């Protein structure tokens, strides 16, 4: 059973997989996600590994799948994404899948190509129709030509001059040719000018714009075109004109010589266009059919190919043994999961029908194993925010279980508003309630995913904020009077104030020493009368600052106490006396005493002697200056106690600085003399192997090896001492200076809660009050949009902005002020080989 306090015990194991059943065994392990494979061939490039051909095949299949997915997405066909989880296909089934995919690809590309050709054809025919329609107008404008044309039809012998695709007409010895077509509207001016310059008047160009946008056959985009008709004399001119038309990318179409031909062509075109439309429709239907059929099984194929590729990748990491019949894999495995791994290997061997079973064998290791902490859906959020700073060392104390309570609490101290807490908690409840909804889980939006992953954190934050909102008595910047205020104004009026007082002064002070004015403290939280007081901030500032310091010292002391668990687990008892004790004494003697003074002042002084209440700051400063007689003591014996605490704190600094290095030095040197004595026995008795086994055994339990290394060279100890002394002096300076700065850092709890309260008050005063104070008939309606504005601003400024800010500061307090007392966070995270954790490249491209 995994515990959240410490990472799991890991072991290095060797898997012996028979060549026939290796694929199935790894498939089983991938489904379960228990072990992390190590690379046994680190020097081999990916092209030289054993299974590179299989991986190439997988990538080819992935390419085809990507093409299919793009086509399906273009055709807007929905993919039936169920919760299917097909197993990795056996090598013999792979050929069938590959076959199907290739056939689909060929078919699809052919159909798409045909469709494009037909589309282009259709567009060309449509252009031809337009051209004929418009050039009819050119001809009919000059109707006086008609009788002239009739005369010359008796001379047909020049019709064989059709070298190019134009119709020539005879006219008085000169050969009249026509070129007609379409050109883009942008180019017509330049075209005309070019024609004039080149042909010098031997051509006549008439053109007219088409009104509607036609789709260009080459690019498929709607463009504005112009129909032109060029009539020219002479062959050379004709060739020049044709070249110019080519330059300007005109679409040329044959020009009919007479009206009957024109009508025939128009009729022919109309039927052809209709036919093309029908064929195109059929093609599109067929394409949709093919894609629909493919979309049914494409999701399964994607998963199967992904799993197959992963298995071959893992197989590449393994090495072959000498007989070449068996694959050896080295894995990191949690000790508690070894039986499960064994069972998975048995299942795999059975499925592949192999007679020789694969087995697992635990081996000792010298490296530090990776860190695995098992979490559920509630704890995973908090574990993630701890690991964002650094993954813990192997078997180190994990701050996450404590973070579950302290993080929302510190957030709530900075956020502290009942109404906002309720809204935040409701939002989190909604997310938690619908956490199994597919649509919520699978959105692509990064920001939403972040909020969704942290839904339990937000829920805790909201609930704790409700609590601190009750304590601060702040609900949308108004106080709630649940229990009845402890202050009574009328008592002042009867006893102290007169009518003149009330008329003459803007502000009056309630004196709690007068009987009847103060009837006892409010049962829970701050008295609601403070909401009406002008010196509200003075009172709250003092309260919140002192509270922040108290919370900070408690948090930091807790961090130091947690380091005891680390010292005990790693069998470094000397750390308890030389590190933990001086640190705790330093912190508590100085800042713990400050906390004591705060609490003492709160308890010992009341409203009666509030004039005599001393300033704690002055007393604290005097403690360091050792001037105990300068001011009235808080309690008898204060001067003596302060000197005593100061001396202890100052003495603990050199103990922290020098204690551990000196002790380790003494340990090495002192037992070196004894070690020489024992060394003879060792040489006689055992070999190096037994020594190394004993050392490995001890390393498993984390004890120090200082006493075993004495039989080796002792130059290293000199080196160790300097290094150790440097390390410890850095730690001492960091700790002592850090105590002061970290304590001050906790004042951000006060600062942010003040900022939140003030923002909330400003929002109410500037938005809601305007709506409420409206007097006219219209004012009633005005309240409705004003409230919407208030709601939107509350959510965007106070919940989102302030919430993120308080989240960040609470996180910083944990990462720096709390964790630097005990956490090193320099470990490696355990990444098991699991199919469910593998990313899919298609999801990344947004195709799935």
């Amino acid at each position: 059973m995994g515990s959240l306090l410490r990472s799991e015990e890991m072991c290095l194991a060797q898997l012996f997989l028979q060549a026939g059943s290796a694929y199935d065994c790894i498939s089983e392990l991938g489904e379960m996600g228990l072990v992390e494979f190590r690379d046994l061939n680190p020097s081999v490039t990916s092209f030289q590994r054993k299974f590179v051909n299989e991986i190439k095949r997988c990538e080819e299949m992935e390419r085809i799948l990507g093409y299919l997915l793009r086509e399906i997405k273009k055709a807007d066909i929905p993919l039936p994404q169920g919760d299917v989880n097909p197993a990795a296909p056996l090598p013999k089934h792979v050929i069938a899948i590959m076959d199907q995919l290739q056939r689909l690809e060929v078919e699809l590309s052919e159909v798409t190509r045909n469709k494009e050709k037909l589309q282009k054809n259709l567009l060309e025919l449509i252009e031809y129709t337009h051209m004929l329609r418009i050039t009819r107008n050119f001809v009919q404008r000059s109707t006086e030509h008609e009788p002239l044309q009739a005369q010359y039809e008796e001379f047909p012998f020049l019709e064989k001059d059709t070298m190019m695709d134009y119709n020539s007409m005879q006219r008085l010895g000169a050969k009249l040719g026509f070129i007609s077509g379409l050109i883009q509207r942008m180019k017509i001016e330049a075209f005309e000018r070019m024609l004039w310059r080149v042909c010098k008047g031997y051509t006549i160009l008439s053109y007219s714009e088409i009104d509607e946008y036609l789709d260009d056959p080459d690019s498929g985009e709607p463009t504005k075109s112009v129909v032109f008709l060029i009539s020219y004399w002479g062959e050379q001119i004709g060739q020049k004109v044709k070249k110019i038309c080519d330059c300007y990318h005109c679409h040329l179409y044959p020009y009919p010589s007479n009206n009957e031909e024109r009508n025939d062509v128009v009729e022919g075109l109309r039927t052809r266009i209709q036919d093309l439309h029908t064929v195109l429709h059929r093609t599109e239907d067929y394409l949709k059919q093919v894609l629909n059929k493919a979309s049914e099984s494409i999701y399964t194929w994607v998963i199967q190919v992904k799993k197959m590729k992963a298995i071959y990748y893992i197989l590449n990491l393994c090495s072959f043994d000498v007989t070449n019949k068996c694959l050896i894999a080295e894995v990191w495995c949690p000790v508690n999961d070894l039986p499960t791994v064994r069972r998975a290997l048995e299942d795999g061997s059975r499925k592949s029908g192999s007679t020789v079973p694969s087995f697992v064998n635990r081996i000792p290791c010298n490296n530090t194993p990776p860190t695995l902490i098992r979490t559920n859906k509630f704890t995973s959020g908090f574990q993630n925010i701890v690991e964002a700073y650094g993954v813990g060392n192997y078997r180190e104390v994990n701050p996450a279980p404590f973070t579950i309570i302290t993080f929302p609490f510190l957030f709530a101290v900075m956020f502290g508003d009942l109404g906002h807490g309720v809204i935040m908690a409701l939002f989190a409840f909604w997310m938690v309630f619908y956490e199994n909804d597919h649509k919520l889980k699978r959105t692509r939006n990064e920001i939403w995913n972040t909020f969704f992953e942290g839904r339990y954190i937000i829920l805790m934050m909201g609930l704790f904020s409700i609590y601190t909102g009750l304590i601060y008595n702040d609900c949308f910047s108004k106080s709630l009077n649940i229990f009845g205020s402890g202050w009574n104004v009328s008592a002042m009026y009867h006893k102290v104030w007169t009518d003149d007082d009330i008329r003459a002064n803007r502000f009056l002070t309630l004196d709690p020493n007068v009987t009847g004015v103060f009837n006892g403290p409010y049962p829970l939280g701050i008295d609601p009368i403070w909401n009406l007081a002008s010196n509200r901030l003075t009172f709250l500032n003092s309260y919140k600052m002192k509270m922040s310091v108290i919370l900070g010292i408690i948090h930091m002391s807790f961090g130091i106490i947690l380091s005891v668990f680390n010292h005990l687990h790693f069998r470094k008892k000397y750390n308890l006396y030389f590190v933990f004790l001086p640190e705790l004494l330093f912190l508590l003697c100085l800042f713990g005493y400050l906390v004591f003074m705060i609490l003492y002042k709160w308890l010992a002084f009341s409203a009666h002697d509030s004039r005599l209440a001393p300033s704690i700051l002055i007393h604290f400063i005097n403690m360091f200056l050792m001037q105990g007689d300068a001011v009235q003591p808080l309690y008898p014996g204060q001067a003596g106690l302060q000197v005593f605490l100061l001396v202890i704190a100052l003495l603990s600094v050199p103990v922290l600085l020098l204690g551990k290095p000196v002790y380790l030095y003494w340990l090495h040197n002192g037992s070196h003399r004894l070690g020489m004595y024992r060394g003879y026995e060792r040489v006689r008795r055992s070999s190096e192997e037994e020594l190394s086994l004993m050392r490995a055994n001890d390393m498993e339990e984390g004890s120090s090896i200082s006493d075993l290394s004495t039989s080796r060279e002792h130059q290293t100890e000199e080196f160790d001492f300097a290094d150790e002394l440097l390390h410890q002096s850095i730690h001492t300076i960091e700790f002592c200076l850090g105590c002061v700065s970290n304590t001050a850092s906790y004042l951000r709890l006060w600062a942010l809660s003040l900022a939140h309260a003030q923002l909330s008050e400003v929002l109410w005063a500037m938005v809601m009050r305007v709506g409420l104070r409206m007097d006219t008939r219209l004012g009633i309606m005005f309240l409705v949009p004003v409230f919407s504005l208030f709601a939107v601003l509350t959510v965007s400024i106070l919940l989102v902005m302030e919430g993120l800010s308080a989240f960040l500061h609470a996180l910083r307090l944990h990462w720096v002020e709390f964790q630097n007392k005990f956490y090193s966070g320099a470990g490696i995270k355990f990444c098991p080989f699991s199919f469910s954790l593998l990313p899919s490249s298609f999801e990344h491209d947004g195709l799935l």
Partner: protein
Amino acid sequence: MAFLICGPKVATCGIVISIWGVIMLAMLGIFFRTHSAVLIEDVRVTEADMHGDQNPPQTVYGLYNQVGYNCFIAAGIYVLVGAFSFCQIKLNNRKEYLVH
């Protein structure tokens, strides 16, 4: 389908703000009716009201009640807005089912 004016997100926003508005304005109305002292700044009290009062503090109480009524009316309007948003959500859902 001609009544489908808002998209799904606008309708959801509408219903969330409406529910919040109904609850919060109703509670505000109750607090104004009980003449809560904390809300004194939100009531338009002039010098004339305070000094020229025949029967103190009834004028101020009357102003409080008026604001309370305003809040209740606004809450009522938000009920209508909420109903409208709810209908829009229903129409959006139906449209989503129809297309496929």
